[in-house]
């Protein structure tokens, strides 16, 4: 299977870099002595207007980093960003075309920033218009306290992406995952690592010889359910706890990338289990699958046997509704209103001349 992963903007770049790192094995220097162990042919492309963000990437080859020249980023201004995309659309699409044909594509981005937020919706739209493979957005929502611009960017980004023809949006939420690290840097690194780990697991699930098969078709079916919004859950055992508890953990808020009540908000799901045969108790697995099915409807199930490996569970759940997203949009509306009032106020001050008008007609005296 041929998979295209595009990381747009700083957040998308970093998650993409983390995916590449884990594909190398996760070591700091593993890129020097190993090959990437993607289960399929995976092409990664990092797109950014800020060259410094591209330079920070350590595990993504330079040829896979596409710099869109526009000073040093678009400054979280989606209008500027979108115009920049239009100006460089041909370059981006040509770069993608040079990578060959694909069966599926993922566009990873933050909803709140400049480049990623403004590039991703039109990029997905272009991909959908150009190719016939499914395109999925992997969107990371911002910390709520990061500011009004980020909130309004997220709101518009999600909306535009939803309308771009995307085949599904997998949400991750910094707000929800903020406790992944002890400080802001490690929190971001932790979030990036979590998303990367889940993405790799997902890629493997889409192209593996499994005991119980799930494939891209199943994934497309799952992602087409609900409101087109999905999230991913993940949990791994230590060989002591049961597979039942691990499945439950992957479906719990602690295991999900985005806060939601699966049993009430979920629409479709795909559960992939991986590990040594001895940890994968079929009765427990079936019990948990049945339980989830009874709440949300259909659940696809895949099992990957890996001798000697402790059990891991990945769940992809599409959502019919999401309270957290409603909350986000409420906040976004407030943020947009606040920004609008601020603009009006400043426009008024400019008209009256404010303090500057006080010295009209005067000359400096020395």
């Amino acid at each position, binding site marked *: 299977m041929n998979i295209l992963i595009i990381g747009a903007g700083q957040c998308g770049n970093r998650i993409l870099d983390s995916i590449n790192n884990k594909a190398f094995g996760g070591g700091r220097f593993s890129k020097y002595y190993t090959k990437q162990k993607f289960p399929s042919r995976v092409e990664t492309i990092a797109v950014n207007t800020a060259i410094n963000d591209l330079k920070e990437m350590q595990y993504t080859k*330079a*040829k896979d980093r596409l710099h869109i020249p526009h000073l040093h980023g678009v400054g979280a201004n989606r209008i500027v960003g979108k115009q920049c995309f239009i100006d460089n659309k041909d370059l981006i699409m040509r770069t993608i075309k040079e990578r060959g044909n694909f069966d599926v594509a993922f566009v990873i981005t933050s909803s709140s920033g400049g480049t990623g937020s403004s590039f991703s919706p039109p990029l997905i739209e272009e991909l959908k218009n150009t190719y016939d493979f499914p395109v999925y957005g992997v969107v990371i929502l911002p910390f709520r306290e990061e500011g009004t611009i980020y909130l309004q960017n997220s709101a518009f980004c999600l909306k535009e992406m939803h309308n771009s023809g995307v085949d599904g949006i997998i949400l991750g939420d910094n707000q929800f995952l903020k406790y992944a690290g002890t400080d802001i840097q490690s929190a971001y690194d932790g979030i990036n690592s979590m998303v990367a780990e889940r993405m790799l697991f997902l890629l493997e699930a889409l192209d593996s010889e499994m005991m119980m098969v799930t494939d891209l078709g199943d994934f497309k079916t799952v992602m087409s359910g609900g409101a087109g919004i999905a999230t991913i859950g993940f949990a791994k055992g230590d060989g002591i706890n049961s597979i039942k508890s691990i499945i439950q953990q992957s479906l719990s808020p602690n295991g999900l990338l985005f806060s939601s009540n699966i049993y009430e908000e979920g629409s479709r799901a795909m559960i992939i289990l991986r590990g040594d045969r001895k940890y994968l108790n079929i009765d427990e697995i079936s019990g948990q699958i049945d339980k989830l099915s009874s709440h949300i409807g259909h659940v696809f199930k895949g099992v990957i046997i890996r001798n000697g490996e402790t059990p891991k569970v990945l769940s992809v759940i599409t959502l019919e509704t999401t309270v957290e997203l409603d909350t986000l949009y409420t906040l976004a509306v407030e943020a947009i209103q606040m920004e609008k009032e601020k603009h009006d106020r400043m426009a008024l001050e400019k008209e009256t001349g404010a303090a500057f008008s006080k010295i009209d007609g005067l000359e400096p005296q020395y």
Partner: protein
Amino acid sequence: MRADYLVKRSLILIFILILSISTASAFDRYDEKIYKGDGYQINNYFIEVFSIKSYEDNRLLTINMYQLKSDGTYEELVVTSEIISNKKYTKYQDKDGIVEIIVKETNCTSAYGTVDITTLGINVEYHHPVKGGLLNAKFIGEPSLLLTKEVDKTNVEIGDTIRVTIKAKNVGTGPAKRITIDHGITPGFTFKSAIYTTYPEEMAAGNTDYTQMYIYEMEAAQGGTVTLTPATATYYCSTYDSEYSSNSNRPVVTVAQEAVETSVLELTVTPHKTELQRGNKVTFTVSLRNIKDIPATTVRLDMLYPYSMTYESGCEDIKIIDNKPVIQKSIYEARYENEYDYTFVANEVGIYNITAKVSYNDGTNNIINETTSDTIYVIEGKYDYLKEYPLYVYIIPIIIIVAIAGWIFWRSNQFKM
């Protein structure tokens, strides 16, 4: 005027008298016991007791007289005899009546006779009893002194003292009498002192050894090669009433001209250390000193060092000429001294010396002076043990490291933007 004339005449007579006494004085020999067959020689006159005969209870002594000749022959002289008071008188008188020899018997036995001998007109230089008679008599001839002049050194400088020794031996056939020596002072030399002057006034013939006659010292006053004036011996032989003289050889003495003041450059070369590891540096300090009051010119200082050492650096005076460190000075002032540092790198293990060579003109000649440093010992360097292993031991890891580094570099560039 008359008085002066008388004084002069008296002095001349006195001189003639003294001269006549000294040249023809009488000789008397009393109670000389001469056995039969023996004789007595006076100068070249030989008196022989030829026979003793008995005569009327007396014994009659027969005396013969001979004139010895230089060719070894002799001439028997005509003598007259008479007996007076039973004593026999034998007399010879030459035809001129100048020479007269009278032998008067005073006692006589059957074995010998005792006689008184008186002579007139003979300067007796030699008289001696002769055993064996005429056959053992020797002709008394002319003396001939062989004179030598020896110097203790033949190459000297002005102001030096030379000791001169004069020796002589009589190679003639007669004794030399009243010998006087003129040591013969040579122009260019100043007589200093006589060391030995007590030479004999007489010297018999036939002595094969030289006799030391005169020793004196003189000082060289002028330069050049000088042939000394010969010593002269003056001597006499009364037998022939003649004066003789002999000259010595003439030694040659070279007196160096007065030394011209020149410059002299003294040279030392000192290593700062005598043991070092291969690959390390060692500095040599060359000290060059003009010890004279004359400047040296066209001075050139070279360092002669082995191929296993490489010149590294040195003081600012050093110029590189033909890849060698050289110091050149058009003039090196009098009493001037300076030190020059040369630093070398020792490339090979071994024992080495470095030679400093200075060439200059001392004002007269071109001089070359060399001096060699103490021995320095170059031992193995800190990492020389690495040479003990074959090259591949190092090449293979290096290739691997380079390959890894190249790979890392290439790989890094793949991830560098």
